[in-house]
């Protein structure tokens, strides 16, 4: 993903309130759009069936609202991204323009996928998300700030405590979310483990 070289301590952008609990990854990107061998074109299909009816006409959806066309921080409720492990879901949202998530809670695999892509998915309280959504509904312009170092999300001068798993937080701040290189550094120990594991050495 972009900005790979540097850490991302502070993410700013317009908030996009998307209400609802248990929004699954099939809704974020319907399976029929996963017939692809790259992630590049997925942005157009983010929330496709929620944004368009069967005739292809636009439905009433925040991502169809021109006033939010520049929105880049998705505000969600509980258990966002549950269901399928498809990385296509955060990829589709990233390619649509999303650069961060603020929500009450996230499904585990989705949160891990966001981390792999360098996208913060931070948790705030129910009251906080209610307030943040209210602010963004009333006025589509305010800039939201996710501050990972200080651990808050703010809008219009009000700050709300925000958290995410410590490993993810540090990876984002230090710009190390692409872990392949780090994992390769343990290669010698991995080879040793391969020789040691009972089921890989034929239980000898």
């Amino acid at each position: 993903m972009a900005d790979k070289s540097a850490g991302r301590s502070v993410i700013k952008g317009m908030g996009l309130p998307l209400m609802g609990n248990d929004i699954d990854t099939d809704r974020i990107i319907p399976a029929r759009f996963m017939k692809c061998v790259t992630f590049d074109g997925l942005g157009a299909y983010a929330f496709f069936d929620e944004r368009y009816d069967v005739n292809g006409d636009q439905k009433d959806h925040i991502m169809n609202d021109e006033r939010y066309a520049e929105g880049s921080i998705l505000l969600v409720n509980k258990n966002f991204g549950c269901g399928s492990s498809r990385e296509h879901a955060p990829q589709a949202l990233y390619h649509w323009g999303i650069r961060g998530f603020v929500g009450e809670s996230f499904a585990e695999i989705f949160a891990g996928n966001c981390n792999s892509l360098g996208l913060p998915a931070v948790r705030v309280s129910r009251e906080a998300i209610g307030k943040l959504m209210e602010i963004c509904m009333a006025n589509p312009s305010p800039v939201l700030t996710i501050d990972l170092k200080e651990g808050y999300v703010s809008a219009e001068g009000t700050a709300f405590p925000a958290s995410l798993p410590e490993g993810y937080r540090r990876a984002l701040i230090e710009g190390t979310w692409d872990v392949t290189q780090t994992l390769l550094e343990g290669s010698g120990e991995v080879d040793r483990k391969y020789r040691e594991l009972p089921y890989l050495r034929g239980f000898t």
Partner: protein
Amino acid sequence: MGTNLFNKIWDLHRIRTLPDGMDQIFIGLHLLHEVTSPQAFRMLEQKELAVKYPERTFATVDHIIPTDSRSRPLEDPLAEEMLRVLEDNTRRHGIPFFGLDSEDQGIIHIIGPELGLTQPGMTISCGDSHTSTHGAFGAIAFGIGTSQVRDILATQTLALNRSRVRKIEVKGKLLKGVTAKDLALKLIQQLGVKGGVGYAYEYCGEAVSNLSMEERMTLCNMTIEGGARVGYVNPDETTFAYLKGKRFAPSGRAFERAEVFWKSIASDPDAAYDDHFVIQAGEIEPMVTWGINPGQAIGIDQRIPFPEDLSDDEAEVAEKAFRHMGFREGDPVRGRRIDVAFIGSCTNGRISDLREAARVARGMKKADHVRALVVPGSMAVDRQAKEEGLDLIFKEAGFEYRQAGCSMCLAMNPDKLEGNQISASSSNRNFIGRQGSPEGRTLLMSPAMVAAAAITGYVTDSRELWGEADGR
């Protein structure tokens, strides 16, 4: 205090603590399919990295393949391209591949156990959330995203946070005609679709010990639907008996030594857990979902809940479910007319599932208005079903008996619902649009319940269609 299986396997596979505090974990078995892997191979090439241990990854094609014809090129050019890319990638990197022409092809979570690749004590990953299935053997098995597929290919390891462990004790015996699927749906209904986030589930208790391996796979498969990434059953004699003679399982003296290892990684009797949940098996009825997530489930004789009896969060999703499903609070599910019946998937596409469904369908005819499909989970399941004449039982009952694949579970192939059809499905997800039509509606239930619905045309208690001789 003793140690539970999860922590034993975790510690056995831990390489080191990474600078950001996560653990680097060795992945003993990596499974691969066509949907979530092409981008991973591309990333690998961009990084100019090789596959570290190609012999520890096994691939098949399952999601996109048609279930009526296997002739190449596939009719859908996008599906053909995905298959071709997987063929190229596995060939180029020397990864064993069970392709369309292989007699071992099938849904990845069905063929892993069938071939004996899945074994107790392993860490197992696949770019697919239903990887939790393999926990049935007493393994830590979980779904991952494509970037993590890349990491396993390149390093055979992942960066992970350790889960907490919840012991789920199922006391007593399941009633006759109540299946592992019903137990799974009941647990999700009780604990919620997000109740398991951050947890691995250890299933235990009399009812779990009594489950066959295939039933344990169904139970573990559905774990992710309750938010937990990992679900497992401690390995026991049932597990060992299943593994004996499987192609990739140890044999002879090695099997005896393996058994010692497998027993050693089971949870200690005095193991510590982060949480403990108890449920009485005898109180569980055949379950049916009425909503848009697997937690929105009720017993066959119960009524759809009133939003005021639910928490605010659940009520919000219930209202959304009512709008999509066309159901109302207080409605029964029994008697609901269905359009399509689907028996298959990594949840319930094994031979025992087909046997259960065939027992209901034998000598019956499907309702005229129902389209009924039976899709075996693998070529091996298909062969066994044919040997037992199950395919004929289904065909005589008017069901379509098709070829192995994921099929209408997620409809990435031509098997799809149309319009707002209602499907009785033995699969795992009733999410909006899941079965291929944005307006389609899914009622999850066990294979026997799906077969019963296909016969009567309405949601039916399958126990009423069984003869007296069909005692469990």
